[in-house]
């Protein structure tokens, strides 16, 4: 397939226009002078300045960041263990229940997860705050990590682990010295996914947070309910920028690594 047909060109153009135009408009109007977001009144960066002064937003951002770092790290450890158990654990009591509990949160409506966790925290008398949000986020994002890591483990050449055992490793050493370094990219992308999910989450955080800890999405949501504001546009632009830079960097790094690998393989094949 060397050239795109006109139909495919049109569908791709329209599709990506649909995906990106709303965000581009949002970014453009974050530089609007006017308070009225729908009327262009000249270029200005003043809303970014106001954002930097807004203590409430800054506090919420700090809470969100801490929650995301803690929960994604915990979720990566638990999710990797769960993936390893599912793919390599063989049979054990309640395996079906376990795999069901891993997959169910992926499609569970957030309102249900949030409500049930809140009722649990109240039931055991745990004060709502950063800790409860971390626990909640860890629970649902560990399932996403587990799916990412297990899809890598499924394609993992089992004889690599057997070779490690054959050469004298204990099972734990084989995991640490062979399996973990090889699946590291999947573990890292699992962490990134968990981190983003935590940054993003509004519903579960709303249920499980208390007055002492408000996350950024909760703040944004309550501001947005009142209507469009240039300050939120500026904040959104910043968040989009961070994600874009992150995703583009990640894809460039993997692309370069893949190209180097392919060149090496070609060079090695030529020797033969």
């Amino acid at each position, binding site marked *: 397939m060397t050239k795109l047909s006109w139909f495919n060109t049109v569908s791709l153009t329209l599709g990506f226009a649909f995906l990106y135009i709303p965000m581009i408009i949002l970014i453009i109007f974050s530089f609007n002078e006017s308070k009225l977001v729908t009327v262009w009144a000249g270029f200005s960066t003043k809303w970014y300045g106001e954002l930097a002064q807004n203590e409430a937003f800054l506090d919420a951002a700090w809470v969100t960041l801490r929650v995301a770092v803690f929960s994604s790290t915990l979720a990566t450890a638990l999710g990797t263990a769960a993936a390893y158990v599912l793919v390599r654990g063989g049979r054990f009591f309640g395996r079906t229940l376990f795999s069901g509990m891993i997959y169910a949160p992926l499609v569970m409506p957030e309102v249900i997860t949030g409500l049930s966790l809140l009722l649990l925290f109240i039931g055991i008398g745990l004060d709502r705050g950063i800790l409860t949000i971390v626990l909640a986020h860890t629970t649902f994002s560990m399932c996403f990590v587990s799916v990412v890591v297990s899809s890598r483990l499924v394609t993992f*050449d089992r*004889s*690599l682990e*057997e*070779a*490690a*055992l*054959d*050469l*004298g*490793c*204990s099972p734990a*050493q084989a995991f640490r*010295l*062979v399996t973990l*370094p*090889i699946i590291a990219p999947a573990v890292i992308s699992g962490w990134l996914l968990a981190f983003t999910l935590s940054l993003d989450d509004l519903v579960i955080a709303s249920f499980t947070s208390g007055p002492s800890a408000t996350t950024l999405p909760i703040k944004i949501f309550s501001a947005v309910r009142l209507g469009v504001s240039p300050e939120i546009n500026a904040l959104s632009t910043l968040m989009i920028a961070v994600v874009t830079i992150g995703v583009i960097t990640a894809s460039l790094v993997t692309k370069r690594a893949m190209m180097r*690998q392919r060149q*090496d*393989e070609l*060079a*090695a*094949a030529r*020797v*033969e």
Partner: protein
Amino acid sequence: MNSSVFAPWDDPQAKPLIQFQNVTKRFGEFTAIDNLSLDIFEKEFFALLGPSGCGKTTMMRMLAGFETPTDGHILLGGQDIDPIPPNKRAVNMMFQSYALFPHLSVWDNIAFGLRRNNVPKHDLEDRVEEMLRLTRLEQFARRKPHQISGGQRQRVALARSLAKAPKLLLLDEPLGALDKKLRQDTQFELMDIQEKTGTTFVIVTHDQEEAMTVASRVAVMDQGKLMQVATPDRIYETPASVYVADFIGDVNIIPGRATANGDDAYQIDWAEGQAPITATSATSFSNGQTCHLAIRPEKVTISAERPAEAVNAIQGKVHDIAYLGNLSTYHVQLPNGTIIKAQTANTRRISRRSFSWEDPVWLSWTATAAVLLAS
């Protein structure tokens, strides 16, 4: 028996290194290994040969410790190794996929097993360098596995599994991933290294030519059972069954009924209106017993006239000719429809072919050329 020939299996005093004692392995309903006993001796190059699913890989994985026998025992140097986990066995394995650790360099791959034994740094370096020399990989020590060719990867895998100087080295289809030319060169290299290191090798393969080339003894397996265990020449010349005769090389099988005709000699009636075939056999047959005559194509002579001296001679006509370069194989159809293959060596360059399609020809062979098999 000449005492300078390496043949511990003929010496009743020799102690085997590995003993399979009535080993059975079942996976659920499926019996992979069926009550099998086998001795393998030190310094042997032993080949397990068979079609896929015959149980040869299961045998190897039981030796490595990745599977345990359902019944029976496996002894290594007289000691039962069933309870020993793979990482504690003095057995190393070269994997079919090579299983080289992609994140480690060639050097670190080879050093991997030694590091697990906490070998002192100096000894470790010496040993790795020795292995690199043995497998001619010195220039590639710092490369990663994806930066070297398939043949080099195969040698890294060999060096890594030999580095710990195991009592026993297992090779799972070691040459399966190489192309034909490289495979032939590597076979001799493997034999060379086996001789130099004096390690016992057990190789699993489905390639009969490879097994015949490298091995001191070959075990032909089918459906979890040993069909025959013998040296390559005996397997080829005196197969124990129709299965083995058919599995190794090309063969004509003629079913018939045996009648004794003097010492070790039998007459085989194989088709109505045809003269019986005369053959000698060390195993005895009762009169009228059904038997199979197995004869290799290269032992069948093809000629235009009936050879005067021939013990066995049958007339037929040429049905097909396969020109293989060094050899030509003639498919000759007998009056009753049976096809017999006869092979001639093409010793002269571009000689005129003596026979053409539909030519009437005579096939002949001696009384000792064929093997008489009961089943």
